[in-house]
């Protein structure tokens, strides 16, 4: 599904190298987790994959189902099936949440040469999916993320993911700012989307999210590289001993 090779990235405006050769291969239907200390490059990886400006790729490649991602505009990546659930979802005053979702769904359908959804069909689908995430009609009418609580913002991200039905989902610290109940709700939303044709990359600091979203593979990232890869037990090891032991062992 996703294949990253030797990815090197620096900040565009300063000579700061952040990713120093990331290699990662995620198969169809797999759930991978990336853990790592602050500043290891986890969020940068998610931004570079989704096409945020401000980063310069100096070497390497990233392909989604064989298609080179790094050459594409952000909207083309989305249409190709990539989705990033933001760590900090953006507030957009003046744009209704429902309008936003419908514009996005139809833009992607159009880009893929599919017919746009009618207002009625769209409403039916969105109501059903919103209900599962406990998103009420009022939240759909409000401007995108404006005045939403931390939990509401994250649930709104998962709703977008459910509506857009991407192939490759990246969750960037989706657990940050969530209480236990909200984390459960969000995880259930994610688990409902697990599918043989859909892969996930879950970026997190803490093991507890992985109790709910069970990964197939866990990677540890440090200083711009993936330094260790293992099964779910690796996350537990981090939880018990911290990163220091693992990093010491690697270095």
């Amino acid at each position: 599904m996703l294949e990253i090779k030797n990815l090197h990235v620096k900040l565009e405006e300063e000579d700061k190298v952040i990713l120093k050769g990331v290699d990662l291969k995620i198969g169809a239907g797999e759930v991978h987790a990336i853990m790592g200390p602050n500043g290891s490059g986890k969020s940068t990886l998610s931004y570079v994959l989704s096409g945020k400006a401000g980063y310069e790729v100096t070497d390497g490649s990233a392909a989604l189902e064989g298609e080179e991602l790094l050459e594409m505009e952000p909207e083309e990546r989305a249409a190709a099936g990539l989705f990033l659930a933001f760590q900090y979802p953006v507030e957009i005053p003046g744009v209704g949440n429902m309008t936003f979702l419908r514009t996005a769904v139809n833009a992607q359908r159009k880009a893929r040469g599919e017919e746009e959804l009618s207002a009625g069909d769209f409403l039916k689908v969105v109501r059903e999916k919103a209900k599962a995430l406990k998103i009420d009609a009022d939240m759909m009418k409000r401007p995108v993320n404006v005045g939403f609580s931390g939990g509401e913002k994250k649930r709104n991200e998962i709703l977008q993911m459910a509506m857009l039905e991407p192939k490759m989902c990246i969750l960037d610290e989706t657990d940050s700012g969530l209480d236990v109940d909200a984390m459960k709700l969000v995880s259930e939303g994610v688990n409902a989307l697990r599918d043989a044709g859909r892969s996930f990359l879950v970026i997190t600091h803490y093991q507890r999210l992985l109790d709910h979203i069970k990964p197939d593979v866990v990677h540890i990232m440090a200083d711009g590289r993936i330094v260790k890869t293992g099964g779910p037990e690796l996350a537990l090891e981090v939880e018990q001993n911290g990163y220091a032991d693992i990093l010491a062992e690697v270095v």
Partner: protein
Amino acid sequence: MAQLQAKQDALSARIAGLDLPKSGWSAPLRAEALTRLSAMGLPGKRDEYWRYTDPTSLTVAEAPAAAPFTYSDEKMVFTDIDRLRIVFVDGVFDAAQSDDLALAGVEISLLAEAGDIHWASDLYGVLEARGQTPVQRPLATLNTAFATQGVLIRATGKAAKPVSLIYLHKSEASDVILHHCIKVEAGAELTVLENGPAAARFNKVMEVEIAEGGRFHHIRTQGRDHERRAATHIFARLAANALFKSFTLTANGRLTRNEAIIEFTGDDAVAHVAGAAVGDRDFHHDDTVFITHDAERCESRQVFKKVLKNGAVGVFQGKILVKAGAQKTDGYQISQSLLLDDDSQFLAKPELEIYADDVVCSHGSTSGAIDEAALFYLRSRGVPERAAQSLLVLAFLAEAIAEIEGETLAEDIRVRMENWLTRHEGK
């Protein structure tokens, strides 16, 4: 003194070719206006009130030429609205293109045809003259003195449909002065629509008197001509419980100065004045507003939004004056601009002057670029860059459009705005 002399010389040159109508009910009002005008002269570049907008092209003897815009397949705004149409071609009433001036709840007559006695003699030039203090507005006084065309509308009940003033522009050299008087009697209700570029140079005054409990709605679009110039004034006076709502959409035009002078004289009245202006390149748009609260518990709201690109200039001068005794005044003013590049400019001068101690007044003015984080967020969800930018621009304008009364009219305006964005994207 030299400055005043220059202003008076400019006036002499400007009015040399104009005739002062000497008969009919308006003659003494015009003579009086000319006396006031002669004392003031025309606005000059050094006037504080014209600090951000050069009045020269509005005051010179001959109007700078402007090619009329030809509509191709695009429908004019308000086409699908059921309305009474009054058409002016280069500032002259065109009976053939206009509807019959009969409308239930409304009396309509033409300034050009009014005889020796008319209800408008209590209004013509009266609100304009009141609006001359504390700031002089000579272009409006010039209008009172020399306008020969315009409509006189009196609403005595609820108007059966909107009155739609359509200004067509045919001649490259047209230099037009129109003066409208509108009286909304107690408890009556009227909607006035205005659209069209009008002329190469347009000087328009609209005086609006709203009696107790009267309601007046005004929605205006200022035409597509690229070269046109316009100076417009709305003078409104509100009695107790009256309502005044005005919205203007401006797209294109070389120079536009829209002044609104609103006075509360009765308690519990409401006045909203809003504008959305979208400009590209040599576009200069100036919204100048002066609201006087001289009664209790009145609410005023000013909402002005501008989207500027490729060196376009936007100006906002807005003042709220709360007189002693105008307790419980609620005044709100916001002026914002979205600059789509580094060449465009927004100049704002918000002012509050308050002499009552129990009031709520707020004002804010901002100018900024498109929110890059929001743009990326939209794109990451698959919305193409241009569509995402349009969505954000419309979102920015939404607060001003929300001031339009009536969803059909608001939708019509929204479509105009979207068309403009489509035409101007990427340029």
